């Protein structure tokens, strides 16, 4: 049986073998004091190549004025200064936060309600759960193309459905005032099932004793939900909120396909702004500065949610 002690590079193995790998392990492991380094090296090399190097290179580019076909000039923090003075960037930042807020809250509320419904036993529950999670399986670009047709003010099915119940036609993504809520509608349709699955998992793991006690004390359905279910399921909701926040902040495909950031700039979020700077205007340095700020934003939001999650942890 192979044990740690007999592996090349380990102290025991080192005594028995004079192989090439042992010599490498000696060098890398500083004379066998840290033989595990050898095993970590491949993963470290890959991480360095695909994560650390791109990050440092992005930081490097962000301090240069660099446009495709033009020479690169070091500008220090000028790109960042320009960014925070750029009205279009500021609006994109605000829109991103607005979009994120809606695209997190709506699926959280609807997903929780759906989970409460599907947690109960009723005929065909399994089948209906399967149907409910179907939108999540679709490719976002395909979903966006279908919704683009549905949103069409004259030819789309949504306005036709509204007309059946006497509601006048809406402009949906073709109006600056309604474009972001309309895009959030697509996000909500697609990602509510994810929240439902997470909350459903949480509900299934809850103990039954508090419910029995509540029943004995004569608690109403609302009191049971608000005083027992909600606090106990809150950590699961926070997990769903973190996943949804990261997803919503970096939403690109649905917005780009449906509205391309328009009308005008009414749905231009940070991602669309970044895309334009990098791949339409080829402002590589400026776009890199946007990436750095964007990364900081995601980290800040995630840390805030993680903090809230820690605070909301339920212990039996």
């Amino acid at each position, binding site marked *: 049986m192979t044990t740690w002690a007999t592996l090349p590079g380990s102290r025991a193995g080192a005594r028995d073998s004079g192989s090439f790998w042992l010599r490498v392990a000696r060098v890398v492991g500083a004379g066998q004091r840290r033989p595990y380094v050898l095993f970590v090296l491949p993963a470290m090399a890959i991480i360095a190549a695909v994560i650390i190097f791109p990050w440092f290179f992005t930081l490097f580019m962000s301090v240069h004025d660099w446009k495709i*076909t*033009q020479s690169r000039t070091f500008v220090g923090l000028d790109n960042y200064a320009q960014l925070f003075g750029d009205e279009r960037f500021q609006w994109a930042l605000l829109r991103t936060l607005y979009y994120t807020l809606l695209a997190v809250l709506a699926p959280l509320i609807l997903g929780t309600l759906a989970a409460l419904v599907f947690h109960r036993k009723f005929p065909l529950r399994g089948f209906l759960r399967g149907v409910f999670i179907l939108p999540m399986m679709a490719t976002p670009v395909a979903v966006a193309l279908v919704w683009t047709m549905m949103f069409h003010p004259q030819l789309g099915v949504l306005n036709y459905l509204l007309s059946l119940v006497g509601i006048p036609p809406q402009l949906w993504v*073709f109006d600056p005032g309604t474009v972001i809520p309309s895009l959030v509608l697509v996000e909500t349709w697609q990602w509510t099932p994810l929240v439902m699955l997470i909350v459903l998992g949480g509900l299934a793991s809850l103990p039954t004793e508090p419910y029995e006690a509540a029943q004995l004390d004569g608690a109403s359905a609302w009191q049971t939900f608000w005083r027992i279910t909600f606090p106990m399921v809150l950590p699961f909701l926070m997990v769903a909120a973190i996943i949804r926040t990261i997803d919503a902040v970096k939403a690109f495909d649905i917005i780009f396909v449906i509205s*391309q950031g328009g009308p005008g700039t009414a749905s231009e979020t940070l991602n669309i702004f970044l895309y334009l700077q990098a791949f339409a205007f080829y402002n590589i340095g400026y776009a890199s500065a946007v990436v750095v700020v964007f990364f900081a934003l995601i980290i800040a939001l995630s840390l805030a949610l993680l903090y809230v999650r820690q605070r909301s942890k339920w212990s039996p």
Partner: protein
Amino acid sequence: MKDRNQGPSALSRRSLLKAGASAAGIAAIGSVAGTAPSAFAQSGFDWKRFKGEHLEVSLTLGPRGELLQKYRKEFEDLTGMTVGDEQVPEQQHRQKVAIEFTSGNTSFDVVTVAYHVQKQLYGRGKWLVDVRDYIKDPKLTSPEFDFADFAKGATDYATQKDGRLDTLPLNLDYFVIYWNKELFAAKGVSYPKSFPEIIEAAAKLNDPKAGIAGWLMRGLKNANLPPYLTFLLGYGVDSIDPDLTIHMDGPEAIEAAKIYQKLDKEYAPPGVTGFNWNECQSNFLLGKGAMWLDGIGFALPLEDPNKSKVVGKVGYGVIPPGPKAQRSPLFGDGIGISGSSKKKEAGWLYCQWATSKMMAQRQVEGAYGAPGRSSAYQAAMSSPNLKAPKEWLECMIETIKIARAGLPDIVAVTEFRDTYGVALTNMITGADPATELKKATDAFRPVLIKTEKG
């Protein structure tokens, strides 16, 4: 301000047709189907000198890409080479190609280029091969190629500022007005002869209760610049002069913007701020639009009974004269050889074939677009294979006379389209044209100066 009614960029119908008339035998060819290989092989030119080579061709998704793919086998038979051709949607194609060129090593040997967006970028990077020496070399260029057959306006459009010719003109796109003859007849309206008459006709034909829009025109930012420039050119000015003078916030630009605003705000369908050509086309195909201002290349879907409810009812109208000039904005695509290709000369054979008289004639006959070759129009006029109505071809030939480069010849074309595109979209939702144009110009001027300096 200079009057540009007779500017150097204007294409001459005479130059197009003169060369066409002298192109012996072209008109007589009539039907070109099935005659191609022999037509190419007449001069004894060695098309097979690169036999066995493989070429990669990167094409923009669209009618020209379709045409080249349709006849790819003919090129392969003619040369003994094999071709891997890929069509990529326009926006993605532009990004993919720019990134590959920046990397210094492209995956393709031959590529299509949008003159109105990419020409300056490609020229500055010297990414494509200058083909002037190839054209002069009888070992590399077939006598049938006849470079003089390209209209001067087309070759001028293809030529870089430093004189390099790094593409051959593949297609020219002119703006025209499609009009629904049935709707015009029902309201007793005749085709407009001036800008005020366009507004008048749109007002009369607009019938929201019946679901009919008097006017269809792109409102989506970036895509909305070409229709706006149609009106600006009618005021006798270009958007930006070669000396970088910007006219986009001048009195002519504001007047043109007011027309644009009125038409799209009052007579276009609700939601037009999100309309690109595709949404306009959908409405027009369904008979829900009386007039539609856009590129000339939509005759095929409009006359296709499987897609269109307006077959046989479409009029193809030349842009009416503006207060100072009668102009149609011109856009175009070319084809060139990647500077990093190891098969440049083989790629040149492909470019010759792709822009040959035969392919150009097929392009017109099949309504795939408007080639830069003069002979193609003459031949198509007498061809029984013309798929689009003759009125479409006549409109195109008339429009060639008044065509002028639509977008400015600058590197930052995309920023230009984006910045002013947002301004135009804002106007449709009620913003003041003068304020929006001033704001956009203030934002764009530093970008222009910076990019043109570099």
